[in-house]
């Protein structure tokens, strides 16, 4: 799903939930969490390729959202605003992870036997090399442009493009093997 595809599912209730959450209503915030946790978690998992870190990152995103809700003025949709926080938070953790990650770290198993080929691709994305995976997720799945990705990840625009092509090449090879 691209960034532009994030649409509010039902405008009024969402506005009300955001407004109540801004006033400190924990129950309203829980509903926001329930509605968006899947979208936030998928970004975190694909970028970090580690379930435990993705869960941690997902919580971190919602803590930030809770803390910064007062700053949300409704200039963009809530989901766009939330998604931007989610991506940036996951990238921050991805950066730290870049320094600490062990090559032997185990890949998480994606749940859901019904997903078939999609599940296979999800697993293969998690197997991609660290930087190639981040570029692939941000470009192909999150709809960022290479220039934006270069800024977010602190790499050259050319590197972003080459990493993206490398990721695609690897995915095509691996899909063929399986």
């Amino acid at each position: 799903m691209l960034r532009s595809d994030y649409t509010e599912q039902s405008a009024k209730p969402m506005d009300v939930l955001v407004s109540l959450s801004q006033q400190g209503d924990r129950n309203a915030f829980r509903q926001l969490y329930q509605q968006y946790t899947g979208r936030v978690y998928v970004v975190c998992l694909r970028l970090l390729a580690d379930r435990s870190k993705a869960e941690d990152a997902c919580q971190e995103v919602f803590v930030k959202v809770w803390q910064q809700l007062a700053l949300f003025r409704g200039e963009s949709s809530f989901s766009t605003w939330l998604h931007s926080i989610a991506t940036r938070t996951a990238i921050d953790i991805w950066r730290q992870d870049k320094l600490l990650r062990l090559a032997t770290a185990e890949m998480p198993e994606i749940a859901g036997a019904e997903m078939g080929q999609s599940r296979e691709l999800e697993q293969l994305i998690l197997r991609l090399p660290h930087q190639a995976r981040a570029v692939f997720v941000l470009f192909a799945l999150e709809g960022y442009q290479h220039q934006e990705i270069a800024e977010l990840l602190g790499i050259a625009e050319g590197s972003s493009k080459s990493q993206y092509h490398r990721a695609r090449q690897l995915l095509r090879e691996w899909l063929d093997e399986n």
Partner: protein
Amino acid sequence: MKTEQELDALIAGLSSELQPNRDLWPELEQRLTDSAAAETKVIAIKTNTWLSVPFASAYVASAASVLLAVTLFWQPADIQSLTAKQSEVFNPRSLDAQTAIVYSFEQAKAEQLASMKTVDPVYADWQQQMAQWQQAIGQVQLALKYNPNEALLLKQLRQLYSQQQNYLQKVVQSGLV
């Protein structure tokens, strides 16, 4: 090799959402409470005029004299109970954070176990493996009793549970194939 178009089609079919394997809300709620408490503390400190710069030198002087008096006259009495009292004051929510982690993982584990049908022979010793993780979890929990709210221990607890959960997921899926 798959063509570019085939890969694009697969990418387009990827889900825009994936739910975590366990309910993250109990832990998240705890973190919200902790962050609110920390924020209140910072605001209280910032707005306290008695902690402003003009009073700083007076504080330093008072602290120095108190330190001198303590050094001269203090008899080492019940150090352990003092330390325990301090840790109670600074870590009032320690058990809650731990409970939230245990609760959410144990709930997810119960659901995974309930969905288990058959087990692939590769995972014949799964119960023994699970018991080993449980033992490690128990040890971290024991350490948390002595160091409540220790962030590294809580993280370790989460990681052990998460590893156990990953393993159990594989066991469960082996029976579904």
